[in-house]
């Protein structure tokens, strides 16, 4: 259970040029948001490319990319996200989308069973991230051993939809496994670190929250392993009250809020709501950790091969 609610910022509206996007993210970092979550919209910058730029220009804030399991090859997406985790020193997240309607327009494969593919896709990506044990790379000049072959694992995945040999050609990400963000409709709780709750009503949201936390056990996870986020309604003078009552119900561990990119759009929230939350002990004054998992109060997962159950 988090000690304080978390805040994730989402940009709203047409994407502007680079400097304005960067300014938006820096404002969020200055205000100590947990993360900024970027959509993947037609006509906008490819999100992993954008996030890599933002990673190099920031130091603490989390950066979450949206990536569709229908539109990508898991090897490429796993690679790009792991790469950003290294560049950002552990601040990347992946918002899993399963959107598949416009694949044909883009020249991408259309899948008869997008949900089946999504489930395998998650298996593959999380498996690829474990390709090298944390201590696989000794990079020892003296002995000449760059990495220990015993600590490298070829995934060898052969499913109904996906066949991926691995290994991924990148060291294990700093977060072990980048943060995985799932939509409310997701029934796959094997890997989700963040789940969005769609409820508008406090009582229903509290029921949803309790259901998710108890379902965690069915997937071999502790209730604290999954954080539930709710979207804030229109910001008013009562927003701090809303956050407080939902957090304590409990109906949410964190909240998402959306603002346009333009400078000034965030001002009211940053200058009024966040200080009020801090006065009530409901938001951080400083980042106390360095990774997105740290900010969200999530443990760093062990490699699937570290448990000794898999070779």
């Amino acid at each position, binding site marked *: 259970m988090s000690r304080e609610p978390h805040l994730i910022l989402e940009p709203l509206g047409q994407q502007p*040029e*680079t400097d304005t996007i960067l300014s938006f993210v820096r404002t969020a970092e200055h205000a100590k948001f947990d993360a900024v979550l970027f959509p993947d919209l*037609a*006509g*906008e*910058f*490819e999100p*992993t*490319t*954008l*996030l*890599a*730029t933002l*990673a*190099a*220009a920031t130091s603490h804030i989390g950066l979450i990319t949206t990536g569709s399991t229908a539109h*990508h*090859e898991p*090897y*490429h997406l796993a*690679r*790009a996200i*792991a*790469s*950003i985790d*290294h*560049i950002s*020193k552990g601040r990347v997240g992946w918002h899993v989308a399963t959107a598949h309607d416009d694949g*044909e*327009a*883009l*020249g*991408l494969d259309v899948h008869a069973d997008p949900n089946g593919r999504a489930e395998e896709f998650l298996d593959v990506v999380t498996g690829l991230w474990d*390709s*090298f044990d944390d201590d696989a*790379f000794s*990079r*020892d*000049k003296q002995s*000449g*051993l*760059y*990495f*220990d*072959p015993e600590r*490298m694992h070829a995934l060898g995945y052969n499913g109904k939809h*996906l*066949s*991926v*040999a*691995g*290994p*991924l*050609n*990148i*060291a294990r990400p700093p977060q072990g496994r980048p943060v995985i963000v799932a939509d409310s409709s997701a029934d796959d709780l094997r890997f989700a670190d963040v789940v969005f709750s769609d409820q508008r009503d406090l009582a229903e949201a509290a029921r949803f929250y309790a259901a998710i936390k108890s379902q965690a056990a069915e997937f071999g996870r502790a209730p604290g392993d999954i954080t539930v986020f709710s979207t804030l309604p229109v910001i008013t003078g009562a927003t701090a009250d809303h956050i407080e009552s939902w957090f304590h119900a409990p109906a949410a561990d964190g909240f998402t809020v959306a603002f346009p990119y333009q400078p000034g759009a965030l001002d009211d929230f940053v200058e009024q709501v966040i200080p009020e939350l801090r006065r009530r002990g409901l938001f951080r004054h400083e980042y106390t950790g360095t990774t997105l998992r740290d900010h969200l109060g999530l443990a760093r997962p062990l490699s699937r091969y570290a448990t000794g159950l898999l070779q």
Partner: protein
Amino acid sequence: MTRNLTLGALVNAGGGHVAGWRHPEAHAAGLMDFDFHAELATTLERGRFDTLFIADAVAVWGHQLDSLSRTARAERFEPLTLLAALSTVTSHIGLVATATTTYNEPYHIARKFASLDNLSHGRAGWNIVTSIVPFEAANFGRAEHLEHSLRYRRADEFVDVVRRLWDGELTHHEGEHFTLRGPVTISRPPQGHPVLFQAGSSDTGKDFAARHGEVLFTVQPELAAAQAFYTDIKARVGKAGRDPDTVLVWPVLSPLVADTETEARRRAAELDELIHDDVARRLIQDAIGDLDLSGHSLDGPVPDIPETNRSKSSRDVLLGLARKENLTIRQLAHRISGGSIVAGTPEQLADRMELWFSEGGADGFNVSFPYLPGPAVDFVEQVMPILRRRGLVPAEYEGSTLRDNLGLPRPEVVR
């Protein structure tokens, strides 16, 4: 207008030499160290290199773990994310990423490179490769590896679609390999098209390069062969209906400088001594074909090798070299290891570059540093000033985009 000598810097933190990471002055953990890359990029920009260049593979290269585990080749940043990040610590240097047409889709490539071009304000380049490593196919659910000529046909259509996406023209495409029902919207690149790089050396490869490449890489240890390649490829460019002056030929150059030639050669030999036997054998196998060398002494001759689906061109070049110079397996491996290191004084390096540049062997070079960061710093501080003094390279960046700095025209809209 004076023709400038143009220069790319191959960024491989482990070094171009297979044992480069073991050099006493190398940063062994550099491969996944972003700060190291950032510092390197700013050094190279200070030296006024035209581009950074990142090679790639979409697999861990190899199943021979004994040798692989002794090289720095098993891990790397994904190129586009690395370059996008480096765009924030640089302002002028070009950012060229390798991406394969075999295991990607045109939409993704067009979009990523357009994004990089926008994020970097017009500095992106795409090194087009058609993959030659079977391990890669297995990461994309494909058991078989595309046969040599088929992958070039796919690549032709791929590049055509990508360019039309960059032009904002694509509402519908139906071809042998790709069907896009459209319409597709991606952000327009400031350069019109990111600059296209290519490295084909087989006949099919050279024709492909002549059709699409604006900067063409080649591996040419000797001037005569470099001149022959240069003449041949420029003729092919002309036959493809393009102006040969709008295409640059860049042989790879692997420099190691020191105050004296003797000292430079000593430094090169020092690197070769760091190569493990298993690595030496694997170098030959990777370059020419998966033959069993375990029964052959490393200090004996190179055996004959049958053709494979691997790169035909490197096999011919290397076998020819081995026969011509009576090289042992170990000696041939040492040649491959650093991509023929050119060891000498800064003046000697500058002389060699000037000779190739003025005698029809090169329009520029893709510089591969045997290990990092030392040779890169040495080149920037000792060789570049000589090239500037000789009027071969400008003192400052004069253009605002990579295209401008390379003296390349804006492409016409593809119809």
